[in-house]
């Protein structure tokens, strides 16, 4: 069979699936966001919903808050994960093998799992405040800071760190293990210090994987609903909760607005991911590192 036909044949399941469930969904919401929603009699096509989205102070404030929150929590997860991955990446060492197995655990469990544990641990009637009072470190549990549903979103950040530090570790260790040790040996031989070795050899080689992990985690923290809903602060609502409420409230005339918000967010996330990839290309290792 000619190669071209074979490629088309092999790719057809993917394109069929994506056309059915992805492109059509995006197209449908695009049409709706322009104001065409005949079921409820909306037929006036225009950019009015985008206009009202950009004029809504609640939406913009929520956007900014969510963006900063997602950026901060993702950066934390990536930094800590990077550090730990470098500390424990030996292949032959039993100690680091156990470490890798432990790091895989949180990746396999749902977010609700850690939310439940956090509520039992750090809410004001939780175990950690009780323990501190028990040990005499704190006079009463009222002195314990509010860590869930708090204005700084600490509860949500802890949840994401628990899930994402291990995710970063697992993706980086897999790359580090495949890395060619000879580069390092040559560098050391030529008199490179530990820091130079890290900056010029290891970091460029894992940089693409790190950027990938950053993008995936950022998109998740920016757009996932369940954790902010359970652990978030109601005065400082995060964007996913805002959009979900708008979508399920049942007012069909609001649907074009919801869809325009969705498309704004999607476009923003794609552009942001593109920007990160661009930045990655300028960092050490961006041109050749990790590419196959």
């Amino acid at each position, binding site marked *: *069979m000619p190669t071209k036909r074979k490629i088309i044949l*092999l790719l057809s399941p993917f394109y069929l699936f994506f056309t*059915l469930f992805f492109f059509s969904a995006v197209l449908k*919401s695009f049409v709706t966001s322009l104001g065409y929603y005949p079921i409820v009699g909306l037929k006036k096509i225009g950019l009015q919903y985008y206009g009202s989205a950009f004029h809504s102070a609640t939406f913009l404030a929520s956007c900014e808050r969510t963006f900063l929150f997602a950026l901060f929590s993702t950066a934390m997860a990536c930094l800590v994960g990077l550090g730990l991955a470098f500390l424990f990446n030996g292949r032959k060492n039993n100690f680091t093998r156990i470490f890798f197995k*432990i*790091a895989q655990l949180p990746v396999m469990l749902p977010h609700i799992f850690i939310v439940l*544990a956090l509520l039992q641990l750090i809410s004001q009637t939780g175990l950690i405040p009780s323990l501190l009072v028990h040990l005499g470190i704190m006079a009463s549990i009222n002195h314990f800071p509010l860590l869930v549903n708090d204005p700084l979103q600490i509860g949500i950040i802890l949840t994401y760190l628990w899930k994402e530090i291990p995710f970063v570790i697992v993706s980086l260790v897999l790359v580090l293990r495949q890395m060619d040790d000879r580069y390092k040996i040559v560098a050391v031989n030529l008199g490179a210090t530990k820091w130079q070795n890290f900056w010029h050899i290891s970091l460029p080689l894992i940089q693409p994987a790190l950027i990938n992990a950053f993008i995936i985690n950022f998109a998740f923290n920016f757009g*996932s609903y369940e954790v902010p809903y359970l652990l978030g602060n109601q005065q400082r609502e995060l964007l996913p909760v805002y959009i979900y409420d708008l979508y399920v409230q049942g007012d069909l005339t609001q649907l074009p607005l919801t869809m325009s918000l*969705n498309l704004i967010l999607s476009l923003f996330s794609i552009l942001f991911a593109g920007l990160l990839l661009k930045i990655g290309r300028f960092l050490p290792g961006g041109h050749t590192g990790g590419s196959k």
Partner: protein
Amino acid sequence: MKKLTKLAIFLIFSCFVFLPLLVIVLLAVGKSWNYPQLLPQQINFGSYFKLLFTNHELLTSLTASISLALGTIVLTISIAYPTAIVLAYYQFRGKKLLNILVYLPLIIPGIALLTNVDFMMIKLGLDGSFLGVISIHTLFCLPYAIKLLVDNLALLHNRYEVVSRNLGASGWQTFFQITLPLSKNGLQGAVMMTYIVSMTQYLATLLVGDGKYLTLSVRMFPFTQAGKYKIAAVYGVTFMLVTLIPLYLIDAWMSHQERRVIKS
């Protein structure tokens, strides 16, 4: 000294990971654990297992979770495997675009994608159907599955396939004798990741499933919200039983097989 710091970091990390797991297990098996007691007054594993085998809701959640995960695995692999073969072995126009397309479900914020697709599913009449739910799960599993498979296939290139074809093997023979056995590791990774991603989905299952597929992670949510931590923890422990144990067993079995191959 340096060893000591490393050990300390290792211990802190282990606590960070294990403390929540321990709390969930204690919640599930403990009895009358109320504030301000630091530990449950009674530990009873028997009551947990009795619940597991007799509680109707728990059992239906378990079957819903597993049947959705298995359906998602079949759909994901049958789409991801051919796509990964093309991405790993061939150069063609639009390859760069396809590479970006594959990742889009992970880049677009979940809430935006989910509401969009749910809206479409209602239109297609798939809202609340098995096919609808495994399709939305597949959308989130595909990026991981394709990435794992491509990485695995690209390690080996298609040199063996070329040799096999040169020696006169047919396309199907080459696939079953060469490509499939060589991608065993990639397939294993993709299947395991798909299983995990499908099992952990919450909002996708709830929205597209129209509340008809109350999986373990879906059921944990309202119990947690209502403060019924013990029953939520029972679902959590069941989740651990059906994910962690099988996955570790498969992993151990695969590495055992590998060692046997190397020895012989």
